[in-house]
């Protein structure tokens, strides 16, 4: 559906007949409403337009403003914050946390995506076999995604507890020594990755499953007649035909994973040290982690994050326009 909106807004890109037919079917006859109708339309839109300006654009502007000034708690009271150009950004870039945070953000995002996507894909193909109970089990798979992130993170914290966690108990039973999942620098990032992958699987499963539903069964029947086995069918038919859906799933996953905050903050607070600190965590820790909020550098880190998200977002929209027909 979003693809339809985009293709309309640009008016090019979708040249295939199917897309044109779908757009036409969804929008109906493209008749410009009369002048009064146009005023009515804007009257209906005005609340959201104002809302977007006041509650999106203005906070973003304030955030930019924060990052270009030297704000202290005092500044909010007396209204004085000197304009310091990019010195907050410079000090953030020179901070010892910058490179670890960048590396952690990249690792966390990429590893999450790879596992969420491949496990989600395997499960989608598995559930697509339509066996008894498959619909019910598929619905149950959604539960981790619907739970408050804080709840999932707390559950994982206790499961991964060094002394009393079930994970170490199971590992101990097979003779592997206790792992300090949350408290050692080598394992903290792995721990939050495990929890995040677990949370992301349902989303990938559902989107990819809906993609599978749109592949015509005729193709599979033809392939069966030609003697293709299940493995060949997946790599030669399913995977190539799912490319548009896969692209969207992965790019949404990227944008979503960059934002992840709750899970890491609850499980490790980005520590020990900065071993599991991502940009989102770093920004929060600077801004709200201590008694005295240091909002200016926090806003600078946040704006770096938004820059990355924006670039990925634009890639997403381009990919969606090009691929989803």
């Amino acid at each position: 559906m979003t693809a339809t909106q985009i293709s309309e807004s640009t008016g090019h890109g979708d040249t295939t007949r199917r897309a044109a037919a779908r757009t036409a079917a969804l929008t109906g006859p493209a008749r410009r409403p009369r002048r009064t109708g146009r005023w009515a339309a804007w009257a209906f839109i005005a609340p959201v337009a104002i809302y977007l300006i006041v509650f999106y654009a203005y906070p973003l502007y304030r955030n930019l403003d924060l990052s270009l000034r030297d704000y202290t708690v005092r500044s909010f009271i007396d209204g004085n914050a000197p304009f310091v150009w990019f010195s907050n950004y410079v000090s953030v870039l020179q901070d010892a946390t910058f490179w670890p945070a960048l590396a952690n953000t990249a690792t966390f995002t990429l590893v999450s995506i790879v596992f969420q996507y491949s496990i989600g894909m395997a499960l989608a193909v598995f559930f697509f076999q339509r066996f008894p109970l498959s619909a019910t089990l598929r619905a149950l798979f959604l539960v981790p995604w619907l739970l408050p992130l804080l709840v999932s993170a707390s559950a994982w914290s206790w499961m991964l507890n060094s002394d009393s966690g079930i994970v170490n108990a199971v590992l101990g039973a097979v003779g592997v020594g206790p792992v300090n999942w949350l408290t050692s620098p080598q394992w903290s990032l792995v721990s939050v990755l495990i929890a995040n992958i677990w949370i992301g699987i349902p989303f990938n499963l559902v989107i990819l499953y809906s993609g599978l539903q749109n592949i015509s069964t005729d193709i599979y029947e033809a392939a069966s007649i030609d003697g293709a086995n299940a493995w060949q069918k997946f790599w030669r038919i399913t995977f190539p035909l799912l490319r548009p859906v896969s692209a969207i799933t992965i790019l949404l996953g990227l944008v979503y994973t960059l934002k992840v905050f709750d899970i890491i903050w609850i499980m490790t607070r980005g520590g020990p040290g900065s071993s599991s600190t991502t940009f989102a965590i770093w920004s929060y820790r600077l801004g709200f982690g201590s008694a005295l909020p240091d909002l200016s550098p926090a806003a600078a880190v946040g704006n770096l994050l938004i820059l990355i998200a924006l670039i990925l977002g634009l890639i997403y929209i381009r990919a969606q326009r090009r691929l989803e027909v």
Partner: protein
Amino acid sequence: MKTRRSWWITLIGVVLTAVMLFPIYWMVNVSLTPQSDMRKSPPDLFPLQPTFEGYQKVLSDQLPYLGTSLVIGIGTVVLTLVLSAPAAFALAKLRPRGGNVLSFVLLIAQMIPGIIMAMGFYAIYLNLGILNTIPGLILADSTIAVPFGVLIFTAFMRGIPDELMAAARIDGASTWRTFRSIVLPVSRNSMVTVSLFAFLWSWSDFIFASTLNSAGTAQPITIGIYRYIGNNNQEWNAIMATAVVASIPAAVLLVLAQRYVAAGVTAGAVKD
């Protein structure tokens, strides 16, 4: 033979689901474990001597938090519906010039990380003096749901036949009347989907709650759990019991409205 094979697959499916849901089972199990067995090694796999002391703690400590979350959730749902349904109607059916720009902005808006919004809101709320208030949190939480709401409603309302609206116009109905008496009742399903997600997201929100309402008198349940983890690191049955209670809305929604949930995930593949 065919059925025999499919039962095997069902068995594998059940095992996979069990593995996936194990952390949730474990949460319930720990919530029922007596404090004396909490540090037992290896831990008990089943709550053989279930205790409800964790849940009693929840009742005595967490009820105000749950109430606040309920109020915030309902407030967010109402605000989201009131803002997004009319806008979607205009985008889908009245199609004003510039409407596409708005759709585009809404798409981008969903990609902004929460921490950035939180900092902007913090600066604004500090000046306005609405930090640590419920309305402030409702406004902030609604930013997660409004863009999603507009996109879902637009997608649905596009499918409403133009003839239906032309008929209303011929009968002399104003645009507002058409929207209220025809479009809204027909869109009931998408209203359920949008409400479900708006409620769930505001109920689950932690980042806005912890930044914009860290010192208020009325705080949501996510802060309740967070406080528990911070304060009494030892009483994990109480922490897990709170977590179980905080999961109830998600479970209820899934049971009562499963098809709406699936519709929301796929149709609005733009969730944060």
